């Protein structure tokens, strides 16, 4: 593997980690059979993206974008845009999480299982009866 590539990845450590986390979350969401795990995977995937965004806004040596002592210089504060986007995103992921958990409860009430494959098979059988 190229040395400069690894070096660059280490310089971009936050992004690298967030991509790895994104991959882990994506894999859990796609492959894990347990619904609660799937939902956790979804959350991990979302937070990983938010970490990616937030690290994009960060500038070394600059402060929180809250105006202090009337200083309004660009060189004093970090980029506020990603923070705003992530704030919006977090709300979205809470809503989807709540919705999916509610669906999980209802499915468990009905089929007494958390395994998605099993639930799908049971649902199919139930209809045929």
């Amino acid at each position, binding site marked *: 593997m190229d040395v400069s590539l690894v070096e660059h990845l280490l*310089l971009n*450590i936050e*992004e690298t980690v967030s991509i790895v986390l994104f991959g882990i979350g994506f894999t859990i969401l796609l492959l894990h059979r347990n619904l609660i795990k799937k939902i956790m995977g979804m959350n991990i995937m979302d937070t990983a993206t938010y970490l990616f965004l937030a690290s*994009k806004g960060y500038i070394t040596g*600059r402060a929180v974008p809250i105006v202090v002592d009337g200083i309004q210089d660009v060189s004093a504060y970090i980029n506020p845009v990603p923070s*705003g*986007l992530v*704030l919006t995103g977090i709300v979205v992921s809470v*809503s989807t999480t709540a*919705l999916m958990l509610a669906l999980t409860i209802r499915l468990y009430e009905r089929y007494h299982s958390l395994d998605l494959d099993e639930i799908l098979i049971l649902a199919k059988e139930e209809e045929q009866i």
Partner: protein
Amino acid sequence: MSRKKDNYETSRWKKFKSWVDGETDPLDHGMEAHEAIPPREDIYDSAAHEKAVKEELSKIYGEDRRAVLRARGIRYFQRFYKVMSVVLCLGIIMVLLWTVASLPITGNASNPDNNEVAARYIEKGLQETGAVNIVTGMILDYRAFDTFGESCVLFIGSCCVLVLLRLDGDSKNESIRKMIAESDDRHFEPKNDIILQKCACVLVPIIMIFGVYIVLNGHLSPGGGFSGGAVLGSGLILYLNAFGYGKMGKMFTEKLYKRITLCALTFYCLAKSYSFFTGANHLESGIPLGTPGAILSSGLILPLNICVGLVVACTMYAFYTLFRKGGM
């Protein structure tokens, strides 16, 4: 040979006809075809040996052959799907990592994203929105449409949870739902736990005051409607856990929840519509921005924060009660 072919032709035609009439299941048809022309099965399934074993098994256990075939198809499909998914996921990670390696380096002030957009937010944000916290000013003034969409996401999320978990008097399969409601999980835990209650007595006021502080100071310090609302909601949840539904139900009913949500969202919608309308038509909005830094400043941001805070607090509490007992 030719006779055989004729037979085959006629049977095919018959099958096709019956299939057009919708009499036969095409899957059955497929299976019958497999029996008629064995080589096709081999294409479908490379492990002929396994097939033989399976057939033995199905004979032994007297299972329906079709079911076995189908189950095997599903299993093969699942295995294939699993392998493909793992490959897909690894591929995505690799490609994205490779991409990251060619992205600009974090923390560098000359990155493309630190452009005139961020510069204007920082340099003029205070004058244009009146908010000391630039992030709040940005999400509630510059990019307010996104934020309005976000509160709609929360609203529709709570509606969906209501659909799924609310137990109604006229629920269709009433007996089952009632049974589940009666076996409420609160039976399994101690009631009126004295330690919890004393702790709650101390903690709930502090949490609530903290939540209110975060909401009201959203334009001055970190936080804002959403985080403050979540803190307020968790305060309500703690109170509920300590003192039970009876006490909570006296002050917080479903009606109140609906009213608060409706009023807050309506105000939000109208206020932002007014601001969008005046902005797009280049009219003066006439909303005073006040002195930056004072609590009553920054125009619409404070009331909007309060609205969002109320909606979020109620929604979080509603999620909790709906998950717990399917109602408020």
